[in-house]
């Protein structure tokens, strides 16, 4: 290391050079590049072994018949043909999931945004309220499902009792085909903490001068929300929408525990269907084809959102 004392490749003025984006030349650059690759090599290996490799493998298995105990045999497009032409449960699970995503994402993010606005204050005791509202989001979904299983019980549950006090009809929530999806969305809304904290961090980053300027122009609170807060928050909103859609597409535990996909497949969500094909019927090839379709759906949705973003996301900075 003695040789680098006076003329270390990375020392001095580097930040400025980085900012100017100047290319480096010679062995100094090679040395820095080697260090860079060395430091990121764990992730590169993990990317190949646990993400890219499995994605390619799933793609390959989707063209095979692969009952877990024997070797995969190539069957071409047969899995996809069956999925798109014969498999009614595929259609059902896709529609169920789309309905769930379509109801949940706006409600979940609307609630998260509203709560973040409420909590974005510097008043005494605000930390207590932030904690209280975040706390349920830490609870494992399995635990939440157990709790709601009891609260929704038609015999002993509290939901029907208090609903009755409000004049609502008595419903067997988890066995009603009409009610079960809205109920699962409703139950999932208690876990609003992560998008809420991200919104809260975003709200904290909006410069106070913008509000002061708006006030000088005579804006009322609603006008400030519409013309300052929401435009400034669009990058955070985009992030939350993309992540929430991806997460909601993977809804599994609530249905797996509360309803087992029933009644009459009303909560057979897509991931639950993949799980059944893979780990109950052990059809790894068929499950891989279903997984590949999910990947393409999520990819297309994400690309559409990112593409549309230059029309509604503002990146101005002060």
């Amino acid at each position, binding site marked *: *290391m003695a040789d680098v004392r006076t003329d270390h490749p990375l020392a001095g003025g580097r930040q400025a050079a980085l900012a100017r984006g100047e290319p480096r030349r010679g062995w100094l650059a090679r040395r820095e590049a080697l260090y860079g690759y060395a430091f990121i090599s764990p992730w590169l290996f993990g990317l190949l072994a646990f993400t890219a490799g499995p994605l390619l493998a799933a793609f390959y298995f989707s063209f095979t018949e692969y009952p877990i105990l024997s070797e995969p045999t190539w069957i071409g497009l047969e899995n996809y043909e069956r999925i798109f032409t014969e498999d009614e449960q595929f259609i059902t699970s896709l529609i169920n999931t789309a309905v769930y995503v379509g109801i949940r994402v706006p409600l979940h993010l609307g609630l998260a945004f509203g709560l973040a606005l409420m909590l974005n204050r510097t008043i005494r005791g605000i930390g207590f309220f932030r904690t209280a509202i975040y706390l349920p989001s830490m609870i494992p979904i399995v635990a939440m499902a157990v709790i709601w299983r009891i609260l929704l019980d038609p015999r002993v549950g509290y939901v029907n009792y208090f609903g009755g006090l409000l004049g609502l009809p008595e419903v067997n929530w988890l066995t009603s085909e009409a009610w079960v999806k809205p109920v699962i969305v409703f139950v999932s809304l208690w876990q609003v903490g992560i998008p809420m904290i991200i919104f809260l961090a975003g709200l904290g980053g909006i410069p106070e001068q913008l509000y002061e300027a708006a006030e000088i122009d005579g804006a009322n609170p609603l006008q400030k929300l519409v013309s300052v807060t929401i435009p400034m928050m669009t990058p955070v909103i985009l992030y939350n929408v993309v992540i929430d859609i991806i997460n909601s597409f993977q809804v599994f535990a609530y249905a797996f525990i509360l309803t087992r996909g029933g009644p009459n497949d009303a909560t057979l969500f897509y991931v639950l269907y993949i799980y059944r094909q893979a780990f109950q019927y052990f059809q790894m090839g068929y499950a891989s084809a279903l997984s590949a379709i999910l990947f393409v759906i999520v990819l297309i949705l994400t690309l559409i959102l990112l593409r549309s973003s230059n029309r509604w996301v503002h990146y101005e900075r002060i």
Partner: protein
Amino acid sequence: MSASSVARPASAGTRPAFGRRKIIDRVLTYGSLALVSAIMMMPLYLMILISFRPADRAFTYPPDLWFTYFTLDNYPDALFRLLPFSLYLRNTVIIASLVIVGELVACSLVAYGFARFRFPGRDALFVVLLATLMVPFVVRLVPLFILFQKLGWINTFLPLVVPSFFGTPFFIFLMRQFFMTIPSELVDAARIDGAGELRIWAQIMMPLSKPVLAAVAIFAFQNTWNDFLGPLVFLQKAEVRTIILGLYGLMGMFVEWHLVMAAVVAAVTPLIIVFFIFQRFFVKGITVSGLKG
């Protein structure tokens, strides 16, 4: 939004009309916050309530929302008789500890590489890293199961632990954003003193990055503790089960709900304790990540 107008001290007495509006504003603010908090906390409250109810009073009609009937017996019953809780706890703690160590070491090395070195393809690779955030876990689940089965890792902790030693994109992203905020003069000074890159990482970057390391540790702890699909698929034997799988197992049996609630309370208590100890790092870890727009 109206933070400044609420926080500003009132010029008391001189403008009574303003004062009254302020009081109304304050009552509305606290009232709505209290109402929302109560609704959000309600399931947790009822869970705790039922966990302390004696069997014959677990559900009274009409519902009684106070600790009128109280017993401690459910806890020993649920944790020793109903479930091998200490075994599940031990398994979960082992997995979570190893995952935390793996994530902290791997993610900070990788993040340091992305934050402080220039190399061909760096920015493209970082975009790839961000893109992998959007790959649903379930898409990889089937091939990962086949891979781990071939390796003989099913029914061991390895499928849940080993990937964390290669980093998780979201944590790498958080750390990289934090590292970018550390003044490069500190690192440069160490380089001039002849410190090697690993030493700079260990002795300069790590001590300066405690907030983000703590945030990642907590997120990793929570994710591992709460994980359901991974353990469900990779851990099938009873003796390797995690706490969450134990809770799930209870749903399949015909059991008394007051005991189930005691088990749920016991399962989430460590999460809540850790949350309260490290609470202040949560928001900080996200705030520095640059998600604030």
